[in-house]
């Protein structure tokens, strides 16, 4: 990042390649549709490049800084326009055994819907810690809360999911 601050194109490209998949996944799991998730990731990196001089390691590392930008952009986008994220633009799953694939897809959609119904902060905490592998300190930094507050969000999120997915949990 220090090289990016000095205007190093190669260093920026490297950062983009390294962090794009994770940031895209965060946006998608928070509930943004694919095309908008791409726009959000792009917007976040544009801000990083243009405002690179504002970065400092004291802000909790590059991933935390970028994650905070992406999460805030997602929240803004979701507040601005509510939409139905389970449209026809979902990518088709590979079809080895159609019946079991459809069954799995249905279950995955149920889980995704249950996650989507969580309050925004609980959902974001779960996505960051469980799905995207951020440490508790990093996730707390992205959400700008304390680690204990993050843990409370995670506990509530998992408790809600357990209640909502109770019929499915019985089958596992």
């Amino acid at each position, binding site marked *: 990042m220090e090289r990016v601050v000095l205007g190093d194109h190669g260093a920026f490209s490297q950062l983009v390649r390294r962090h794009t998949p994770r940031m895209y*996944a965060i946006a998608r799991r928070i509930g943004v549709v694919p095309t908008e998730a791409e726009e959000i*990731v792009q917007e976040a990196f544009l801000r990083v490049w243009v405002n690179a001089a504002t970065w400092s390691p004291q802000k909790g590392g590059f991933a935390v800084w970028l994650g905070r930008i992406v999460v805030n952009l997602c929240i803004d986008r979701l507040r601005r326009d509510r939409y139905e994220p389970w449209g026809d633009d979902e990518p088709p799953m590979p079809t080895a055994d159609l019946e079991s694939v459809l069954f799995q897809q249905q279950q995955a959609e149920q889980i995704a819907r249950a996650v989507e119904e969580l309050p925004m902060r609980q959902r974001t905490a779960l996505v960051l810690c469980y799905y995207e592998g951020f440490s508790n300190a990093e996730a707390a930094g992205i959400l700008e809360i304390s680690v204990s507050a993050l843990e409370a969000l995670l506990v509530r999120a*998992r408790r809600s999911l357990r209640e909502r997915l109770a019929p499915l949990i019985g089958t596992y």
Partner: protein
Amino acid sequence: MLLSRFKHYFAAYGADTRRWPKKRYEIWRWRRLAASSRFNSERTEAERLDRLLDLWKVEAAPERLARHICRQALALPQRPKSAIAARSDVIVWPFASYWPGIASFGVALVMGCLLGWYGSGINAAPSEDWLNTAALSTLAGDFGER
């Protein structure tokens, strides 16, 4: 570590200790503890939910996205540090997140002092003189006094 704290980790981070807070020595201890039978119910419950959550996959970011981002961003000029430096007339408070707590504590302290200073008479018993006067005034009619 308190057992309740350990159960709290199951409830927050799930059954896979790799997702738990990373302190190497403690992880080693936790892994040994996590496998012990005293946490069977918490572990089983967390594992069931983990298995379900793992079913939800999202598609990978398109290959072209990173290239597109680089092309778009690198065409833009970077803002120099001097342009984004904090304006001298803006006061930046240090430790911003602590100030609401400090302010609340200060207000509570002032309220407590005020209550202690002026509130001492709130629950005090009424003076005996006042009680005697009130009692005599009701009896005054019986003795023909007006």
